[in-house]
């Protein structure tokens, strides 16, 4: 089963090229082409399911970019959880760790932040907010490390264990909001609303743009720097590129690097959950995440597993999901239609990489076999 893991990350990461500007341009160009294909597919799906294409697409664009409020309070606000979860997936896939559990890790982060809010109600936000975010991050990290230990100690495929942990987390939240964390009136299955003093500050009057946005940007930049400029970042990338070679090189402890990756990946997702709670929902409830952790896979793959690229693709998917909700509201189009588009985008990236790998093998090393 080892093969399934180590092969996952290769070819999906951005290929090294000499000119950074050309590299960025080509990456943006590719995303543009993929996006165009995605929109074309969406059009076909809309037409096939009997929806009026024009009004639906107009609602999509309006919901995502139609007004200042749509941009700041729908699109960018959705970019935050997608971005954190996307970073979690990107860093994991880089190391060949197929963490499909960002969803569960995000939920655990939100749950612990919610639990911490109660005892912190009367403290200063300068103390409470960092504690809640850190608590959420640690919770996500520990949740991911269950999968890490299962893989390293017992050889359990993390794809399966993280998905199982997603379902466990979902049911755990379902129980928490009807049990220990339920609001005091015990009417609705949700937690007590977060007092305004503990909410993440809103950056612009009249919008929902919160301090989680700059936090995401700083996190992505720091992660990118760490990945490409530090020894531990290098170790993560090498393990993903080829764990056997990294191991025989003797310098890299594959096991501890993998565990670090699980921990870091879960930390990012958990942080995303805490930030979503503190900045947007202000309460924990059962459908807290509309599948951010799964969409994050598309976000990360489309960004070629590059932390800074994740910011761009998270914005893109934030717009897509904001638009999808407007499409459902205004044009009666089921919002799950964008899940199909996301899935096809993942498949397109995969196909593109296979095609590129094959043509590279054909032109480059004609003599050597794979």
């Amino acid at each position, binding site marked *: 089963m080892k093969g399934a893991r180590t*092969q996952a990350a290769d070819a999906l990461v951005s290929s090294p090229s000499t000119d950074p500007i050309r590299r960025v341009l080509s990456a943006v160009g590719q995303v543009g082409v993929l996006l165009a294909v995605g929109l074309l597919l969406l059009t076909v799906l809309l037409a096939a*399911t009997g929806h009026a294409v024009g009004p639906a697409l107009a609602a999509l664009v309006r919901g995502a970019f139609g007004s200042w409020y749509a941009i700041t309070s729908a699109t960018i606000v959705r970019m935050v959880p997608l971005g954190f979860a996307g970073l979690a997936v990107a860093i994991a896939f880089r190391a060949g760790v197929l963490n499909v559990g960002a969803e569960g890790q995000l939920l655990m982060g939100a749950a612990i932040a919610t639990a911490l809010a109660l005892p912190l109600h009367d403290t200063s936000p300068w103390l409470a907010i960092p504690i809640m975010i850190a608590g959420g991050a640690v919770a996500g990290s520990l949740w991911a490390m269950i999968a890490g230990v299962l893989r390293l100690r017992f050889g359990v495929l993390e794809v399966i264990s993280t998905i*199982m942990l997603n379902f*466990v987390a979902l*049911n755990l939240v379902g*129980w928490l909001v009807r049990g220990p964390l339920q609001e005091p009136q015990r009417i609705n299955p949700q937690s007590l609303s977060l007092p305004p003093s503990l909410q993440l500050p809103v950056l612009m009057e009249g919008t929902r743009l919160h301090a989680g946005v700059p936090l995401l940007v700083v996190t992505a930049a720091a992660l990118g720097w760490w990945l490409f400029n530090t020894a531990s970042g290098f170790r993560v990338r090498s393990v993903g590129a080829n764990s056997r070679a990294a191991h025989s090189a003797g310098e890299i402890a594959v096991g501890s690097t993998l565990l670090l990756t699980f921990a870091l990946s879960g930390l990012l997702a958990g942080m995303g959950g805490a930030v979503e709670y503190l900045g947007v929902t202000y309460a924990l409830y059962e459908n807290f995440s509309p599948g951010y952790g799964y969409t994050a896979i598309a976000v990360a793959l489309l960004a070629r597993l590059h932390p800074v690229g994740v910011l761009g693709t998270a914005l893109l998917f934030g717009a897509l999901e904001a638009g999808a909700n407007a499409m*459902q509201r205004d044009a009666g*189009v*089921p919002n799950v239609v964008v899940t199909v588009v996301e899935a096809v985008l993942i498949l397109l990236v995969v196909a593109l990489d296979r095609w590129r790998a094959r043509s590279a093998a054909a032109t480059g090393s004609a003599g050597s076999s794979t």
Partner: protein
Amino acid sequence: MSALDVGSAFLESTVRTATPLALAALGECVSERAGVINIGLEGAIIAGALGGTVAAGILGVGGGFVVGALAGMAIAALFAWFTVGMRADQIITGTAVTLFALGLTGTLYRSVFGDAGVALTTPTAGDIAIPGLSHIPLIGQAFFAQPVMTYVAMLMALLLGWWMRHTHAGLALRAVGEYPEAAVAAGIAPRRVQALAVLFAGAMAGLAGATLVLAQAGTFVEGMSAGRGFIAIAIVVLGRWQPLGVAAAALLFGAANSLQTLFQAMGWVGVPYQLFLALPYVLTLLVLAGASGRAAAPAALGRRD
């Protein structure tokens, strides 16, 4: 209720919930023996559920099962195109295929049956009591008075076990999963074998989805596959890649799921039900950790080239 009644009801519910799991896991078992791990199984199940729902309204229950299997196969064909045809990564492709099917079924269902998802009832397959056997105390009703797909699952487990061991095709399947190079040397085309195995697994998963609707729920619900595709993969591990073992493992998972019903019957209503819903997933993790001796796994599982 007497203890015997409670036990009988518990077993019946165990077999009922185990049936779709067993169908999907038996298919996955074949595909994994050919070296392909199909995370897209979940997608094939939900496609089978919707296909079965729609077709049953028009063609009746039998047609529902056939169309369900075909719908699962169609999703598997997409997976096979990428993983067998292009040798793309099985895990990422499988994840995408599952998302694809969940999104597509949700879109189609809501587009056709309305935004809120109007409760749609389908005809359901009746229980078939096997004369004599169904009167055995305790286990009779559970194992021998079930809808047709339960018997299909039982027969499949026996048949596949025999087929893998005693036929040329079964040997070819195992050769591809264990040592593709040797299979090629023996004149077997690994890709064709893998593609067929994946399609078979898709059809079985589609049947599993149709069973959820036509033998249990009587209606389609978005996302009703509820992780069964992933559980099926865990069941294959627990069953050590042997069809009979897989069937037994499916029963164990059915039992975990039915504990909830048992506890309700025992009057333990204070126990939070979400914790029971989480139980099969926790069990899967424990099982996977316990089955860590991986000697039984096909050697070339997940390999790409």
